């Protein structure tokens, strides 16, 4: 981190609390698996060795909402899935964030019909929308980086999901 130069002989470094907190939040953000459709394949690719999301502190995709900070909703969400999605979101500990991955999760995509939510923002509050059908792994990683910028701008005292 280049922190050694600043340390000198004192063994102490001064910074703001916000810097430390947001640094720890963004560098160990564990996403929850929420693959609903074909976008999940790209999400897996983003996780796998070629694109390797663990470079950004996302080593683990958690299957449990209790252990995750970030929900990546990958795919179209049907009306019957809505209550499940909301329940899992409510079970995640604060602070928590949501990425709507792909057109279907963002706005319903091509599925403008009676069975599909026209955007998961009707069910859970979304922080970042990633466009594409499906988005490439680079696009998802860019979405995650955008979310990091948002998290870094948040104050520690303010509600985490503003």
């Amino acid at each position, binding site marked *: 981190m280049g922190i050694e130069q600043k340390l000198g002989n004192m063994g102490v470094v001064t910074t703001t609390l916000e810097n430390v907190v947001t640094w720890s939040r963004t560098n160990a953000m564990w996403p929850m698996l929420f693959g609903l459709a074909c976008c999940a394949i790209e999400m897996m690719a983003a996780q796998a060795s070629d694109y390797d999301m663990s470079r950004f502190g996302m080593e683990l995709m958690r299957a449990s909402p209790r252990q995750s900070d970030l929900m990546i909703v990958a795919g179209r969400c049907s*009306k*019957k899935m809505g209550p499940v999605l*909301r329940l899992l979101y409510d079970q995640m500990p604060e602070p928590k964030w949501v990425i709507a991955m792909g057109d279907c999760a963002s706005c319903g995509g091509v599925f*403008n*019909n*009676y069975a599909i939510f*026209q955007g998961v*923002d*009707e069910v859970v509050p979304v922080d970042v929308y990633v466009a594409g059908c499906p988005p490439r792994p680079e696009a998802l990683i860019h979405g995650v980086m955008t979310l990091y910028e948002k998290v870094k701008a948040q104050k520690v005292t303010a509600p985490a*999901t503003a």
Partner: protein
Amino acid sequence: MDKKLEPIVKDLQDKFNITYEEHRGEAHCFVKPEQIIEVLTLLRDKHTFALLSALTAVDYYPQNNPRFHVIYQLTSLEKIAFLQLRVPVNGENPKLPTGTGVYHTCNWRERELMDMFGIQFEGHPDPRRILMPEGTEGHPLRKDFPLGYEEPQFTFNFEEINIRKPYAKE
């Protein structure tokens, strides 16, 4: 007509006065709604149609009398014969007697028809929706059901749709 089906259709015609039609080599028998249970029982017990392979419906909107055709697709594994029964149903308060007493398969299939077409089956043991969540209004596979759930959002109508679009609360 398939030779195996000839005596069966003749039997049905003698007993129930059904109309027979053929479409691309498929046997279609038009049955009156009040006779359907007897016809199904006869076909199952006497003519070895042990399998109800499909139970579905067609909506002929805007035609109202009959508006729906309820289709029973029967298979005889013994004779390797296929027979389609079509029951015309009116658009006003569509109703049929339940076939769960004859084929157990009817249970979920009839629930699907109730859910998707709004065709009621009298005497059904469990008349709930099967596919759509509870509280859904309307029947999605009817032709007069609106196709799009929401008007597409473009730059010119973004504000207008944004106002009435529901958003989740924190």
